[in-house]
């Protein structure tokens, strides 16, 4: 019984944090619009580019939809991490972090709330954009079926792992590290081979590319769209790597939080 009560209280605290972010989104049209604006812009740029090259190249005509699928998948990865990191940053921008850390909210519950918010923000941004992809380019992401679930699960796990690591660094180093939240994912973008196959990279870079879970997802996505083959092996390998990265991110987050408590950084979360 005490365990059931503890679980109910933990759920209530996670719910309270989700409610806090929903209140914030509801209060700000600009925040809501921003969730859709950038994914939509990306979709149109890459969608029309694909439309153009497919008229002039047999290969691209055969690979119809591969760029659009890539840009949508990339946005799941990038916006998933941003959804996590921006919700965390909202606490630092509003100087509310200390209020939360002295409350009964446990860090793991805070992280759970941030993961839920990442999903909510992603849904608000991406669902309309996937519908635009159908309307403008005749590309139905949902047509990927069960494979889409595997792609999504692997990408969102990576995005949360990166988000957690960034949150830990922000706790330890304050707002001076804010730019990490916006740029870290772009550091791995060329290596995850979003728009091109892994074999175009030099051999030594391919080794690095294959230790990043999103690389498996983008390779799997191209195999499905261009060869109509679902590579379950790639998804399983990505899942194993994600489990390792996710566990490492949880450990890093708690170690950095502990280090912040030791250094007194939580008293001064500004620059």
């Amino acid at each position: 019984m005490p365990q059931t009560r503890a679980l109910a209280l933990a759920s209530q605290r996670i719910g309270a944090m989700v409610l806090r972010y929903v209140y914030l989104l509801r209060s700000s049209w600009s925040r809501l619009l921003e969730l859709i604006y950038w994914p939509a812009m990306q979709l149109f740029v890459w969608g029309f580019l694909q439309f153009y090259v497919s008229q002039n190249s047999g290969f691209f005509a055969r690979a119809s939809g591969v760029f659009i699928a890539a840009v949508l998948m990339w946005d799941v990865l990038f916006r998933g991490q941003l959804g996590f990191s921006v919700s965390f940053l909202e606490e630092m921008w509003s100087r509310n972090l200390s209020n939360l850390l002295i409350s009964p909210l446990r860090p793991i519950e805070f992280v759970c709330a941030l993961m839920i918010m990442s999903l909510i923000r992603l849904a608000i941004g991406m669902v309309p954009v996937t519908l635009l992809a159908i309307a403008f380019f005749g590309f139905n992401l949902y047509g990927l079926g069960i494979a889409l679930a595997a792609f999504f699960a692997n990408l969102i796990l990576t995005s949360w792992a990166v988000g957690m690591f960034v949150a830990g660094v922000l706790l330890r180093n304050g707002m001076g590290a804010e730019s990490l939240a916006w740029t870290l994912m772009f550091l791995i973008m060329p290596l995850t081979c979003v728009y091109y196959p892994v074999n175009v990279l030099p051999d030594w870079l391919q080794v690095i590319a294959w230790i990043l879970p999103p690389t498996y997802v983008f390779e799997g996505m191209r195999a499905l769209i261009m060869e109509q083959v679902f590579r379950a092996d790639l998804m399983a390998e990505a899942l194993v790597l994600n489990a390792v990265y996710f566990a490492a991110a949880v450990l890093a987050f708690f170690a950095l939080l502990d280090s912040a408590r030791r250094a007194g950084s939580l008293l001064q979360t500004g620059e």
Partner: protein
Amino acid sequence: MRPAVSVDQLIKVYKSTRAVDGISFALEPGSITGLLGGNGAGKTTTIAMILGLVLPTSGTIEVLGAEMPRQRYRVLHKVNFESPYMDMPHRLTVQQNLNVFGRLYAVNHLPERIASLAAELDLLDLLDRPVGKLSAGQKTRVALAKALINAPEVLLLDEPTASLDPDTADWVRTRLEQFRKRRGATLLLASHNMVEVERLCERVIIMKSGRIEDDDTPGRLLVRYGRDTLEQVFLDVARGRGHTREAAQ
């Protein structure tokens, strides 16, 4: 009776700076204690260690029988804190903020609790306004409502009336006194404001350079230092004249 808060040989070293240097004290349940000291005396670090925001280098802290920070989740729902240096989300209304914090502290009958706090702290007309649009005095009242949302057994305050006009500051002090009497709560108040400490506190701990320089009731401090006000006592301690004067007497 077991102290509500006890601190024993507490030390905090930041790199080469000893922010808190071996302090010990215990707070009786239901008491109001003032933590006096100049800038950099170690007041905020002490409070942050009691709350578990900062880890001590050595020493022990117990709050309501729980060893901090190891057992903090056993008691954090019975503790709260207010400081003008912490904010609440600006875009959220007062009602939304109190709703979120009430849920975090698992407050029973939350709507009724918010209504009663709003009436008590004169917030009824502000409930639907975003916190960012309030004046400094109004924000302090909201912060106080947040600090009282769980009717804490231990309430820590860091300069609760800083930047408030004398009338609003007096109003806040009256509410704190009322809360302490009604709830039987233990209050620890860090402040530079001698009038505030003299009015509210039955005990004063004076800190300087991370150490406790003196610890007594306001009345006894005035007698021992031969002064008329706590401000004079504070200046004596800050300028190192305390021990000389006592020795002379």
